[in-house]
């Protein structure tokens, strides 16, 4: 379970997240929606501490995964990132073979048993619904794949290190409609084994893939509820205005 309490986050003097409290159950898909700059991606990146890479930021409050404060001094960030996988906005495969892309997380974890690695690579590619398309060209460069295939490769790469949570930061925004629907189908399947949090600009996508939806505006979590509720009968007027496209 992911949980935050009284989260405030600052970029320098800019107050990017304001007092956010939220809980996300295991094996659910939670979507974050909201206008650009509302803080939803910043909030997502708290859970694998990618915000640590940005200089001059400050966080207060608690961010817990299964009850453990992931910002505690004793937490090893590289271990945390093995538990919390991430898929980015633009597919970012490494300039390596398809096989080595998926094996990367295992290699940096020091796993060298080649039979284990091969089995895990196959399993992960199957998990990302890419195996049938690439099984005959595992040695080929990942750059030879289409954009949609590259994004599924990045999902497979994240699956290979057996995370329990997968963060997706607008994973389909750079893809065509067919590739997008493949990613969405995949999210439905992955939900069985992983807790998924997805940031999206596409309201229909949030409605299609998620169980719960959080609407962010100006650094605040305006409304957080079952996706059906948010899209059919939101409680707040701002939410209503945003999902009906009255501002954006």
């Amino acid at each position, binding site marked *: 379970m992911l949980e935050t309490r009284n989260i405030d986050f600052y970029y320098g003097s800019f107050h990017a997240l304001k007092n956010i409290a939220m809980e996300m159950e295991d094996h659910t898909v939670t979507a974050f929606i909201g206008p650009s700059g509302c803080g939803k991606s910043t909030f997502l990146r708290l859970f694998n501490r990618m915000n640590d890479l940005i200089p001059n930021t400050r966080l207060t409050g608690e961010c817990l995964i299964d009850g453990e404060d992931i910002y505690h001094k004793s937490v090893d960030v590289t271990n945390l990132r093995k538990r919390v*996988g991430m898929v980015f906005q*633009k597919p970012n495969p490494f300039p390596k073979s398809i096989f080595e892309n998926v094996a990367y997380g295992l290699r940096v974890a020091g796993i060298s048993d080649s039979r284990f690695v091969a089995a895990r690579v196959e399993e992960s590619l199957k998990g990302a619904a890419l195996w049938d398309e690439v099984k005959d060209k595992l040695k080929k460069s990942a750059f030879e794949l289409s954009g949609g295939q590259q994004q599924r490769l990045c999902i497979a790469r994240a699956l290979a290190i057996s995370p329990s949570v997968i963060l997706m930061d607008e994973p389909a925004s750079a893809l065509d409609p067919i590739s997008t629907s493949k990613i969405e189908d995949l999210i439905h399947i992955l939900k069985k084994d992983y807790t998924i949090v997805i940031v999206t600009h596409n309201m229909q996508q949030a409605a299609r893939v998620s169980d719960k939806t959080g609407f962010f505006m100006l650094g605040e979590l305006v409304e957080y509820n079952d996706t059906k509720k948010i899209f059919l009968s939101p409680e707040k007027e701002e939410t209503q205005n945003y999902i009906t496209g009255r501002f954006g």
Partner: protein
Amino acid sequence: MNSNLLKQNIAFGIFRALSLMVAGVLLWILGFIIYQGIGVISWEFLTTAPSGGMTSGGILPAIVGTLYLIAGSSIVAFPLGILSAIYTSEYAGNGHIVKFIRIMTNNLAGIPSIVFGLFGMSLFVNTLGFGDSILAGSLTLGMLALPLVIRTTEEALKAIPDTFRTGSLALGASKLQTIHRIILPMAFPNIITGLILSIGRISGETAPILFTVAAYFLPQLPHSIYDQVMALPYHLYVIAVSGTDLEATRPMAYGTALVLIVIVLVINVSASALRKKLQKYHA
């Protein structure tokens, strides 16, 4: 015809003519050197020491000396330069110390090579007591090449988009693993370009080796890094302006220049081949 299109064609025409001119100048120099120097190139010229007061014989000691100096200064400048660049561009952030290092690196690049020569003589030859030697010459040339190696390596690292760094870190890789497994292999082709440039620079310099290693006439080959050597650029200078019979040795001077150019060319071509091979996974 549309007047914008006409303007564009005229502008491109000028650009094309200017860039062809650059190529033309290079070809002219090359053609001139080849025309003047090819006559003296022979097996004997390449494999024997100068003789007859440097009016006959070959240039073998100078070829060997230059190769040693290229290798020696590469050993000094490449690891030091590449590691410094990794530190300043990947680790050090953008604080005052890094800015200071950058400014100093740029200033170092602007120092005339004769000053490097004098400094090398003072520090390596005299103070540290290496004498006129391959060691002192390599260290001096290495220092000269250092800013070039650092700058080009930094540029090569900066050219790698951050998405690759975040992608690797998000998979639980450490910063060092990310640099070692993702960033350096990607930046390597461009780093090599920088190394080629610096080899070109090293191999042609005369001033830094003048007081640190170069011998006027030394027919035997070096036995250790504490020996002096002849070097092609200095030998070229000697037989062009201060030889025993300038008129008679003019073709030998051009031949020496030709050999120097061919050595640099061979290194460039093999480095480019290596770069192509390393780029196999790139789009």
